[in-house]
């Protein structure tokens, strides 16, 4: 289980990233955030976001048209 969940379903670029950044900031270092999104662009965007910020993309998948990501805060 992640420490927090962000429901970004129905939101379009760049809102899932902006909201995720805000939610990650509220986690402690090492905390995990689960993100649910329907924007198909979110898959590549969260990969790029994590590569750039150093946060760890622990899970990335899709179920029933909803994309699910788990990100671990690095610093």
């Amino acid at each position: 289980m992640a420490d927090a969940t962000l429901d970004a379903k129905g939101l379009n670029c760049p809102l899932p990233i902006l909201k995720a950044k805000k939610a990650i900031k509220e986690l402690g270092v090492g905390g995990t955030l689960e993100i649910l999104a329907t924007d198909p662009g979110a898959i590549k965007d969260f990969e790029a976001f994590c590569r750039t910020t150093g946060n760890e993309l622990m899970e990335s998948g899709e179920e029933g048209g909803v994309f699910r990501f788990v990100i671990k805060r690095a610093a």
Partner: protein
Amino acid sequence: MADGNQMSEEAVEKTIGNAKSMTIIATKGTLDWAYPPFILATTAAAMDVDVTMFFTFYGLPLLNKKLDLQLGTLGNPAMKMPMMGMHMGMPSIVGVIPGVTSGATAMMKNMMKKKGVASIEDLREAAVLSDVRIIACQMTLDLFEMDPKDMIDGIELGGAATYMESALTSDVNLYI
């Protein structure tokens, strides 16, 4: 390494030293042209990039507290909106008919809301909240007789040299 929530002095210095920076010059104030600068500025800020935005000419009114952005319909043959199950373009001549601009604007705003696209007001607020540095062009302000009191809080006034100082040390500089 980070010690709990507290970063060591060394880590802070390393982070600051490695921080990327970007500047954007926003020169256009129609609804469609307002999106790229604000989307890129907020996303870059979310990716820990230090962002400066310079608003000049028709981009300057994007800083007014009250926005009523319109879609520019004239001279844009690429604008094709989904309508009646297909994508319809608009002959340029239609754009001069009174009411067409506001009609197309209303359609676009409605479409954006349905598709979960953020409003410019929301993106602008996100930019301010994420410490994007916002510079309003002093010359444009004088030229168009605009009042900084009508603009959002947290902006600074400056000219080309103020922008250039920032651009010269930035990794990415965009003109939109």
